[in-house]
């Protein structure tokens, strides 16, 4: 069981490493966001599952942490992506088309 937990932890850390590599290598901000948020969510979940396997009495806290990561990480990345688009950060040279162009103008209001 502990060995299995260690293997899960290695897999999770490899995903975290791939996320950081994507953060360095990707060409523009939106691609970096793809790498930096999705892969880290999966990596953290795998690592915490491995942790819960290695120390079975921490299952509760690990499950709470996994639940929290599942809910919070997509939320923050969504907020960041939307904010970056509204702040006018460019899509990069290689982007084929910008399907959101013109879709956001009527959203501004002084709510």
């Amino acid at each position: 069981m502990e060995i299995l937990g260690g293997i899960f932890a290695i897999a999770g850390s490899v995903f975290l490493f791939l996320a950081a590599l994507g953060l360095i290598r990707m060409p523009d901000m939106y691609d970096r966001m793809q790498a930096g948020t999705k892969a880290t969510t999966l990596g953290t979940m795998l690592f915490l599952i491995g942790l819960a396997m290695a120390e079975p009495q921490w299952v509760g806290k690990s499950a709470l942490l996994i639940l929290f990561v599942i809910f919070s990480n997509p939320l923050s990345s969504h907020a960041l992506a939307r904010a970056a688009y509204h702040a006018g950060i460019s899509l990069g040279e290689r982007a084929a088309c910008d399907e959101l162009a013109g879709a956001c103008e009527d959203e501004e209001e002084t709510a």
Partner: protein
Amino acid sequence: MIKRFLAIIALLGAAAVLLPFVLKLPTEEALPGLASEYIENAPGELGAANLVTGIIVTYRGLDTLGEVAVLFAATAAVGLLLKRTGNEGGVSHWRASEILESGGGFLFPLIILYGVYIFLHGHLTPGGGFQGGVVIATGFLLLLLSGSVNSFNHTVMSLVESFSGFAYVAVALAGLIWAAGFLDPRFLPQGDFGRLFSAGAIPVIYSLIGLKVGAELIGILDAMRCKVRREGVTA
């Protein structure tokens, strides 16, 4: 150029002054007198599993009272400086997205619950009143950021804050009457070591500190926020 050179000289001088302390630092294995006194006596006297919070609340209780008073003064000063005059705050805001709004509404009870857990278990696990209060304030901040709440009820906030401050001093005075001195938590039963209801009045004091810190920090954040212009609201 000469300025940078002088800066480097000053940095080297500071390094030369501080180097003996750094070299001396890891060699001190034995605890100094007061710390070893605390570590030997505190678990038996207080019954708190987390030694740090026990020391902060009891032996250093007056310092904690002073910190809470300082935070109160800071809140009052921020509220005074950033007082609304009524016609300012004409900043147009982007509305938060619907995903953020509903996600914030979902995460808010979780965060508040966790803050309450932290300050209730202050004598067992790391954290305590201050950290729990900050977590609660963060939950309310998430509501503000996600746009589902636009302002807070100031009456309730000031009521919670003044009640918890008053009750903190009242508990301290109760220690003066029924136990050894001011801020002595041992007038309540000690209970079993490591249980939730143990360690005398430390959980009570920490709950009050947590409520007070949370209300104060929410007050600061609410005062610092740019108020949204009212007349442009589309229903």
